[in-house]
């Protein structure tokens, strides 16, 4: 069981690096979707006893993170007629390198943290930090609005990973609320992206630079 859990976490880390290294937006959406499915699997594994609510939550996570949000983003991508991030602020190679360095640091950092007894060797904590870091990298270094939304999703996935340590703290209703917020958030961002592409005939956030001092 532990081995399977670790395998899933490592797959998530690999997807992080993959998302940093490709320019095709569709590929990044796929990576985030797969990560969502893996998170659902992790949630299933860490639930010691799976009751009705737990099962519902696993399904909701799989459907929202793995299917609904990615499908919506693919739709938004088609509407905006955009397929590639062409010139990010930091090149794909360098951002992948930064991601790898960040992951390494996260592992080292997690070892110095005062973790509770059952978690001292778990990969979840460093994976959480590494995924948050990846999300930030995408948010900061990419120009296309959809890529920034994907960065936000990775950031949320990282936080979700940390939440797996704290199942009792997050009751069913709150978890569902968080998922609902995430979905609504991406939905509203998608609408705004649609307006941006209509207004500027491009979804590069470089167009959004009129408001300044």
């Amino acid at each position, binding site marked *: 069981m532990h081995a399977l859990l670790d395998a899933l976490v490592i797959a998530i880390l690999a997807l992080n690096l993959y998302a940093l290294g490709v320019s095709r937006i569709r590929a990044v959406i796929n990576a985030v979707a797969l990560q969502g499915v893996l998170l659902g699997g992790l949630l299933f594994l860490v639930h010691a006893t799976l009751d009705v609510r737990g099962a519902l939550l696993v399904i909701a996570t799989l459907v929202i993170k793995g299917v609904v949000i990615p499908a919506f983003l693919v739709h938004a991508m088609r509407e905006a007629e955009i397929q590639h991030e062409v010139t990010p602020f930091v090149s794909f190679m360098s951002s992948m390198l930064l991601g790898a360095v960040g992951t390494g640091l996260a592992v080292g950092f997690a070892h110095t943290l005062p973790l509770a007894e059952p978690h001292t060797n778990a990969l979840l904590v460093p994976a959480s930090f590494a995924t948050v870091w990846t999300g930030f990298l995408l948010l900061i270094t990419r120009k296309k609005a959809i890529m920034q939304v994907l960065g936000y999703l990775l950031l*949320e996935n990282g936080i979700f990973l940390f939440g797996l340590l704290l199942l009792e703290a997050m*009751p069913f209703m709150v978890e569902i609320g968080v998922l609902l917020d995430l979905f*609504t958030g991406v939905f509203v961002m998608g609408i705004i992206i649609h307006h941006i592409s209509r207004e500027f005939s491009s979804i590069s956030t470089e167009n959004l630079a*009129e408001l300044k001092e």
Partner: protein
Amino acid sequence: MIYLLIAFPLFMAAATFLWPSDRTRPWLLPIGGLGQLAVVLGAMSLTMHGAVLTGLSDWLRLDALGRLILGFVSVLFFLCSLYAPGYLALRADRPNRLFCGNLFLVQGLMSLVMVSHHLGLMWVAMEGTTLASASSLYFNHNARSLEATWKYLLIGSVGIALALLGSFFLAYAALKAGLESTLLFDALVREAPRLSPPWLHAGFVLLFVGYGTKMGLAPMHTWKPDAYGEAPGIVGTLLAGGVTSCAFLAILRMYHICVAAGEADFAREIFVATGLLSMAVGAVFMVRQRDLKRLLAYSSVEHMGILVLGIGLGGAATYGALLHLINNGLTKAVLFLSAGNIHRAYGSKMTSDVRGALKRVPLSGALFLAGFLAITGSPPFAPFVSEFTILSAAIRDGHFVVGGLFLLLLGVVFVGMGATVLGVVQGEPPDPPPGAPVLRDSVATGAPIVLCLALVLLLGLYVPRPLVTLVREAAAFLETAP
């Protein structure tokens, strides 16, 4: 009863979305605003007579702090709702279904933030306010408001995401201490002394950065001038007085846990430093500011700084800060709404185009000028009282450097803001473009602002006893560990 606080605005939101006519829909706002105010006042008077309002097995509770801020936000919402029909009649070209409905939705979610005693639930509601208010920012449907909405949405959501991570750290602090991990506020306060300090500190910092982004504290304020600059005045008021107050409450919840854990000094140092920085950033960008609404946004950054500074100083300054939350919010209503009128009258909000407002729109111009005097802390207006309370508390407790900087920054703000405001209200108005209709002051868009200003003046001359009690009890609630 406690469910009604949230259900009523949500019901009004649903009714507003379903209402068929664009022309009559805005009138639902004052009706709903009055109803919400009545419900809130009812709940407040029940709790003041000793009743305890709880719900969802203690996830919801109307405590002394939530009561004060919820009461204030409901008053502010009611005042704004009085202004809405007059404003939306001028904007009859734009559909207002989403706009009106979302105002109620935001109000309902804000009420949920106020009564949440579960930090996860509070987070969900807080993120909800961001999402629900985003479409109101885009009311004008142009490139500038699009940019503002995008920044507001993305920066706000990322900031709030960090607050969720901070909440998790807090729950982990309980887990590390050998307790069951929880996000129930009452349990965290009760067990605070046993929480693991490193996780508590890290959680505090993340929560402060996260909700501080939402509140618009420097250096996380970058979305604020853009959002407030492009939003309609009424949305600016509700963001600057309502949503920021919710974020402030969320920070105070975290502070409360720190106080109970005996870590108050750690939190206070961060509050004082951030407060002074926010005041300084606000002051610097207000000098020579050429955009009226951005000027108000930086003023909001400054006053958010004053709020956390007051809490950071502690003692009597806590009372001053909570009072200032109300005084600042009401004064911001005067400023944002009158600036909105001026914006409509000139078709511009840049100082290069707007001159002689006292002649073109005498009432709005005068209200804007009075609002400026009030917000910069001139007597006899209300912000003077609360700012003076904070300052005298700082001096009495021996914080001479902080007190001196506070006074110096207030001076810079007065001069910087004054130059812009006087340029707007004085002088000869430019000739209106031929053919365009010239907007004059009207009762519908003027009277609600006069009412706000009257309240600001009243609170400056005399703070009613029930309000003193409310603020005192809220401050006492915050400063004591159970």
